[in-house]
């Protein structure tokens, strides 16, 4: 993985001066996916920026460049799933057909509940596993509250890595800020497990007199009472049964969470933040970059999707608009029909061009703002496509776009 030089900070209103603030810190995606040391790529970003598509395109490109790849997607759009031949959510990697070259591409969709069940089965004896899975609290928890998805995505990543069948794993993350909540998992699980709550929950009846609780003084009895009253005695019973049954597994849980965290921090992992050149998407990207940095996660760079360009940059928006107005104000009746049609068309094209130039300028401003705040984050821009991706060909084009040099 290449890290960008630090000295390219002359970001004086680029676009006007012609100086490209990205010079010297382009994200080299091919170098990243070709590097045999790169074992895991995690794509994160807000919804609607093409994160899943980017993950799939990266996976395909890496495979076609000779690597053995698995792509783990979370809730992909139907068409994208179909483009990789995924028709059912079965929690198992499937070989994607139609991939050229010596590598191999497999893809899968995450099934939260099944992944959770697998964890339970791996950590508990069959009888206890059955108890847990029959518990209503568990059933509710495992089938898709906000949050479970994030944890299970990381759990699955850990499983895929442990299987060792692939030399590159590309992971998509859920489309929300909480996508990085899994980074908190080891700590939160830790404070929960080392904490007192679990003991209260495990033994609601006998809490008061236990010596372990003494240092918590008066508040404790009240807490027990409140937890019991608020949740209702039967809920507390369910939770208690659940926690007791899970108790033997929790150590394992924590260990796994720690291991996944370490895996994410390891040099073989690369995080890609995906965004579009829009205010909201870039604000979310900034949040992700900050978050990854504060956890010292290896950030490879920013993928900026849907960037617009033009073949006629020499014609400014102002001149295009002025010319369109000139054409529209010409007295059309004095001219032959052919040339009238041409003039209407020319005016329309000039207006479109003006719109395009304004859009490019706006996108560039957004990008430059990000770049000046995060001068060390390499960036790659991917051109806007006319429509959605429907097949491998479309994914391949995006993969090429990820490596097109300006």
């Amino acid at each position, binding site marked *: 993985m290449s890290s960008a030089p630090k000295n390219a900070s002359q970001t004086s209103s680029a676009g006007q001066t012609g100086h490209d603030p990205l010079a010297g810190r382009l994200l080299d995606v091919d170098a990243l996916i070709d590097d045999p040391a790169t074992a895991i790529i995690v794509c994160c970003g807000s919804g609607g920026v093409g994160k899943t598509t980017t993950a799939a395109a990266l996976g395909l490109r890496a495979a076609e460049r000779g690597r053995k790849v698995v792509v783990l997607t979370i809730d992909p*759009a*139907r068409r994208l799933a179909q483009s990789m031949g995924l028709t059912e959510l079965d929690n198992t990697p499937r070989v994607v057909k139609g991939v050229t070259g010596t590598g191999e591409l497999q893809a899968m969709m995450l099934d939260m509940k099944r992944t959770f069940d697998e964890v339970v089965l791996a950590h508990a004896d069959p009888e206890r596993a059955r108890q847990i899975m029959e518990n209503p609290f568990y059933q509710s928890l495992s089938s898709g*509250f906000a*949050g479970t998805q994030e944890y299970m995505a990381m759990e699955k990543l850990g499983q895929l890595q442990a299987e060792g069948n692939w030399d590159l794993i590309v992971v998509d993350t859920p*489309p929300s800020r909480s996508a990085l909540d899994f980074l908190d998992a080891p700590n939160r699980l830790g404070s929960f497990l080392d904490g007192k709550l679990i003991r209260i929950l495990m033994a609601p009846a006998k809490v008061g007199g236990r010596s372990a609780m003494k240092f918590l003084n008066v508040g404790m009895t009240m*807490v027990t009472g*409140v937890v019991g009253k608020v949740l209702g005695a039967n809920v507390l019973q369910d939770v208690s049964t659940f926690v007791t049954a899970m108790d033997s597994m929790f150590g394992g849980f924590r260990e796994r969470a720690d291991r996944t965290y370490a895996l994410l921090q390891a040099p073989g992992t690369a995080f890609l933040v995906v965004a579009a050149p829009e205010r909201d998407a870039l604000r979310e990207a900034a949040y992700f970059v900050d978050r990854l940095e504060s956890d010292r996660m290896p950030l490879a760079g920013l993928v900026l999707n849907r960037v617009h360009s033009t073949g006629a940059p020499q*014609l400014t928006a102002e001149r295009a608009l002025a010319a369109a107005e000139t054409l529209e104000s010409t007295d059309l009746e004095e001219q032959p029909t052919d040339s009238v049609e041409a003039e209407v*068309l020319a005016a329309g094209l000039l207006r479109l061009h003006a*719109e395009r130039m304004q859009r490019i300028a706006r996108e560039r401003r957004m990008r430059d703002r990000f770049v000046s705040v995060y001068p060390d984050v390499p960036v790659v821009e991917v051109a806007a496509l006319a429509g959605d991706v429907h097949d491998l060909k479309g994914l391949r084009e995006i993969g090429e776009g990820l490596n097109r040099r300006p």
Partner: protein
Amino acid sequence: MPDWEGARLHVVSGKGGTGKTTVAAALAMALAAEGRRTLLIEVEERQGIAELFGISALPYEERKVASVAPGALGALGKRGGNREGEVFALAIDIEQALLEYLEMFYKLGRAGKALRKVGFIDFATTIAPGLRDVLLTGKACEAVRRKGADGRRVYDAVVMDAPPTGRVSRFLNINTEVADLARFGPIFTQSQAVMRVIQSPETVVHLVTLLEEMPVQETVDGVAELRAAGLPVGAVFVNMVRPPVLDEAAVLAAEGDHAEELALALADAGVGARPNRNGTRKTIPAATRKLVEPLLAQGREHAARVLLEREQRADVQALKLPTYELPLLSGGVDLGGLYRLAAALKEQGAA
């Protein structure tokens, strides 16, 4: 009469990136016209509302973020006379909401602090993430039902910037699930009360989309899912609509032999070099030629998009739901833009 006269809780969902927060804010403003008071609720702890209204981060309290002067959104209606409408906003903080929720049932005092100390808050919001949704929907319903000293509702309408389409059914139905788990007790009673609001005619769930394939597909799926979950589907808000500058017929006409005339028209309009006076009018300078191809390419792209948008619009219309269109505001949405969007919504009868 506006389309959603009886609705008091407007839940705004949609695929990520479609502008849910913007639409929710514009709707809250439109509903505040004519001397009404609305509350805009943010549930994802992103401070998107503060960003949109150009104010500093919102604390966990209801705060006025905008006023809507009489007639600010177009012609004055009959309802409110000359009173000014008010938009309040609330960014929900989960931890505080949880303590408040517990406080609803019991005076916690020191026990509240102790709960935090033993990790109950972390446990509750992380390990049992469903509780987040209980708190968020509970808070919204509380605001809907709240009455002032005069016995009238404090807010004429509550607009919630909700989780994305894929999660919204589950999010809104969380209380059914909780009621099933709890079966009786205070939590059960509370969940039932929340579900009564959500499943009543006072609640509508709106979906925001763009005229693009994935968001429209997700909207179609979302509507089906909401209906299957027994949730009241409201309207589809088509956001960021761009006016067609050229239709495909015009662009197709430009293909082939028209390029020459186009080049001339451009040159006549002062773009590129002027044609050589000594030659025939067919001598097009190189500088002008260099413009024609890229401009035509952009025209073709535009025409393809217009065509695609037409298909997407047909798919949206096939849902047979009330549909409102919001124009794309180039340069992004600020407070001024919100008024424009709110006016557009009002004009189309959404409020």
